């Protein structure tokens, strides 16, 4: 079947949005490649949805340019951009059946009735809802409604689909399942997807690249593993999951000390040298042992709390007078330590980074 748009590459250069006296989005520069699954991740008010609305054309692009392939679409109205769109509340038309909802975008396109039927059939098959074609959207569960919205977005085979927290209204168990399905469909059809979410696990699970937004700007941009394991700032580190941020004195970009203990870390490239700094390390990277761990970083600690969270046992630790958190997988024989135990806490140099203290921007 033929494609609606020639290109699926979207480039934002210097994009900004102004509401009254406030810049809610500032200087966003990013090129989303054809066939890429790209997420805008951030807390509420970070500008991620506004950025998506500018790409969709529902909000005016006050500054900079948005290009689709070689064409500047900054001033093109939404109905001419030809993007698919999936909303958090599904935005299904309650007065139409599932099949009519899916056929809706085809009705403004010049297609024969047979071709239209065929496309609707294909879209419903893709989302595994063929049996529900004649139902009303209201008769479906949340997950099924979201699938109808997806079918409606892919039915005219746009090269680009924009999704605004599409799984935000679903409960936890269903969410992971739907993430897998959306990702599979995106791969199979080779679509570009721009995905807005505030759920870091969701973004990491689905995306090729993630832009973490804060105060209208991109705080960091990279693959899931890059941003999770090597954050450039304490904000990104904390936003993507549990993070230990131990206040230390940096002696170089890779070495620090605190209370006589010395630490060796991977270079963060953040320019931290001999200042107060934060030593970043994820809780699951900490190794706990009764005897020295033999890792590059190894300090004495004490267990202050043992939390049973199911798949994970979370230890609260007192390390050099600071609270730290270590996550251990709930394997046979865990928890291995009890409240009050003294132990050694170790981690590899490549698993930690020195970051600028918070409040210093970025």
């Amino acid at each position, binding site marked *: 079947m033929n494609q609606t748009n020639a290109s699926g590459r979207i480039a934002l250069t210097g994009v900004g949005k102004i509401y009254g006296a406030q810049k809610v989005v500032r200087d966003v520069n990013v090129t989303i490649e054809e066939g890429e699954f790209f997420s805008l991740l951030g807390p509420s008010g970070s500008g991620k949805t506004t950025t998506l609305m500018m790409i969709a054309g*529902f909000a005016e692009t006050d500054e900079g340019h948005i290009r689709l392939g070689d064409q500047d679409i900054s001033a093109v109205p939404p109905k001419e*951009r030809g993007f698919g*769109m999936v909303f958090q509340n599904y935005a299904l038309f309650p*007065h139409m059946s599932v099949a009519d909802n899916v056929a809706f975008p085809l009705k403004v396109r010049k297609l024969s009735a047979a071709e239209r039927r065929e496309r609707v059939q294909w879209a419903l098959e893709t989302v595994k809802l063929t049996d529900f074609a004649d139902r009303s959207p209201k008769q479906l569960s949340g997950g099924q409604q979201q699938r109808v919205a997806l079918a409606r977005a892919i039915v005219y085979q746009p090269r680009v689909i924009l999704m605004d927290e599409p799984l935000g209204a679903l409960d936890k168990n269903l969410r992971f399942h739907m993430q897998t399905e959306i990702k599979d469909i995106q791969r199979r059809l080779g679509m570009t997807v721009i995905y807005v979410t505030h759920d870091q696990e969701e973004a990491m699970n689905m995306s090729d690249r993630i832009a973490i937004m804060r105060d209208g700007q991109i705080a960091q941009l990279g693959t899931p593993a890059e941003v999770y394991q090597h954050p450039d700032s304490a904000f990104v580190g904390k936003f993507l999951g549990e993070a230990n941020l131990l206040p230390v004195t940096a002696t170089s970009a890779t070495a620090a000390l605190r209370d006589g203990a010395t630490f060796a870390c991977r270079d963060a490239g953040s320019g931290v040298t001999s200042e107060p700094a934060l030593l970043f390390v994820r809780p699951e990277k900490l190794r706990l042992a009764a005897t020295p761990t033999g890792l590059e970083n190894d300090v004495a600690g004490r267990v202050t709390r043992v939390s049973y969270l199911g798949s994970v046992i979370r230890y609260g630790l007192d390390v050099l007078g600071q609270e730290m958190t270590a996550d251990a997988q709930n394997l046979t024989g865990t928890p291995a330590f009890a409240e009050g135990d003294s132990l050694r806490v170790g981690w590899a140099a490549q698993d930690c980074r020195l970051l600028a203290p918070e409040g210093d921007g970025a």
Partner: protein
Amino acid sequence: MTRAPLSLRLVVTIGALLLIAPILIIVIVSFGGDGYLKFPPESLSLQWYDKFFGSSRWWSSLWSSTVIALMASAISTVIGFLGAYVLVRSQSRWRLWLLALALTPMIVPQVITAIAMFYSASQAGLVGSLLWVAICHSVIGLPIVLLILLATLQNIDVTLERAAAGMGYSQARIFATVVVPLALPGVISAALFSFLASFDELIIALFLTGVRTQTLPVRIWNSLLLEVEPTIAAVSTFLVAITVVILMAEWAIRRVGGRQ
């Protein structure tokens, strides 16, 4: 906690019954077989209804009322729908002023609205024109139409319109395929309520209708001044019955619409 005390509920029930007692008395009196207004009636008959339906004067009033109410309802529903859409979708600050303005007919004492409309009409020689009465009645009906349609349109998610626009639909097609079908139950409610508002209105009609265009409430009024006879009770009961029927129709339509 989930139940109010029994004493309170009793008081409220009795109060509510007292509220409609006078209306019930009129209804009962209208079926009286006596020669004058008497409660309770000594015998029952339909004589006053015969008189009502047998009188061409009453029929012509019913006709005037109906024509005026239909026109008023159409005018205020169309204008109210457009107004409500603009008010719901507009973001700017003046929308509140506009709303306040549109609600003035609900707020200004009706005598004064009536005087103002009469004064304007007499300057333009419009007294007695059915259309002019309908226009004035549509102003009276506008606030209720606006309130109903504001609530209706507010429940239509703007993302539905965005979704359609994103799929390539123009504003006009979105209106036809999404907004109007979804707002239909509210539009019908608004039309029925504005019909009633006009059908039942007295004061403005009293000022603006001529001898030949008297509406039903006006003729009831004039009859009261001339002759206190039970026909008025029959006409009143008829008017109440029509009101109740229209309200029940509205309720039924709303239920069916809600189920869809």
